[in-house]
């Protein structure tokens, strides 16, 4: 049976659980986890000076505003969430919709320009490079689900109600139209095909920003 023929999983597959009731404290905790992972991957100490420098980058600013937007969306302040979404676009040229559910440890590329729609469900410790876009099925009711520790290269398009397993790596310029649910898959091409598979622990100990294993050798989980 092909991967695409299998059942589409629930967001719980991505370690997200049922719809959360997010508080501001929770949103800020998630952002802190994002920053911890970012500095771990950048191999920089998390000092106030480095934090202030990082905040100048559209990718970091986008993640911060996205977390605030997530909180507003969860509190049913839809107009405020919509304004935050517009602000994200103006500041970072990214389309990050506050209705999306993203686990801790999200790292966006410095230059921003990422598209994540409201029906995207993304697991923990994902790294998304510039111009990558996640678009669910138009008019559909099923979400696009990405597992933990996924890496989306530059200009990757993930279309439709599909599911990607933990540690999936999608190479640059690929267009993903079918599910790849096994962990540690490497996919590329238009449309994307399987190019290999790796044990999940190897993927988890990899630093995608530096292109080498993590310094401490362990997972980047904050």
């Amino acid at each position, binding site marked *: 049976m092909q991967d695409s023929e299998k059942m589409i999983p629930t967001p719980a597959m991505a370690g997200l659980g049922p719809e959360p009731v997010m508080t501001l404290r929770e949103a800020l905790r998630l952002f802190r986890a994002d920053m911890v992972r970012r500095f771990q991957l950048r191999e920089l100490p998390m000092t106030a000076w480095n934090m202030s420098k990082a905040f*100048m980058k559209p990718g970091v600013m986008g993640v911060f505003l996205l977390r605030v937007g997530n909180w507003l969306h969860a509190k049913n302040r839809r107009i405020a969430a919509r304004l935050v979404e517009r602000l994200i676009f103006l500041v970072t*040229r990214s389309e990050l919709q506050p209705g999306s559910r993203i686990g801790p440890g999200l790292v966006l590329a410095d230059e*921003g320009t990422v598209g994540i729609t409201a029906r995207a469900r993304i697991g923990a410790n994902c790294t998304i490079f510039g*111009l990558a876009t996640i678009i669910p099925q138009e008019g559909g009711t099923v979400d696009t689900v990405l597992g933990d520790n996924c890496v989306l290269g530059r200009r990757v398009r993930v279309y439709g109600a599909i599911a990607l397993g933990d540690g999936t790596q999608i*190479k640059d310029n690929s267009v993903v139209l079918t599910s790849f649910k096994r962990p540690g898959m*490497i996919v590329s091409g238009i449309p994307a095909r399987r190019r290999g*598979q790796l*044990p999940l622990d190897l993927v988890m100990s990899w630093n995608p920003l530096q292109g080498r294993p993590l310094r401490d050798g362990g997972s980047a989980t904050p």
Partner: protein
Amino acid sequence: MRQSYRETRHLIRADIAWRCLFERKRVTRLTALRLMFHPGVATVVLFRWQRFFDDHHLRVLGSVCRWLNLVMFTSAYSSRAQIAGGFLVVHAVANYVDDGVVIGPRCVFFSQNSLSRSPFIEPSPGAPGDAVAAGGGVPLVENDVVFGMGACAHGNIRISALCNIGMNTLVDFSTAPCSNLLGVPARVTTQKSAAPE
């Protein structure tokens, strides 16, 4: 090696001269001044000054240039990248050049191009699932290479002179001179034996 003020000016002149040739304009001071307002030229000039400031320990000014490139053109060029004169960016949108990348003279970026170390971990061909091919290393691009829109190259590879890389191509292997590449992952579509004029 530190880039001096004289070298910076020389490189900017070479960039503008190559741009004028590309647009079939005469190289005059007025043309150079007008081209400074073109995003494709402005992004290259900002990169040249960023490199100069960073080399001379004027980190704040270097950061300002980097930030302007990031915000205005969503492009990021590392100060540790070595880009020779005649660097032409057609549309200054979302270009990315990583630390240590070497780009030869007269290379053309259309837009959304990236040259970086590989962010992916891959199985080694000899021992699948066990060892991994190191993703370290960055591309080395020789002279007169044209990157089509969205083309990118990563890993420790050498893109030889006079290659044309098609739109949305992903190059992750070294290429012979005068090759045309296309696809994700890239395939060599044609290869000429002699350099075109």
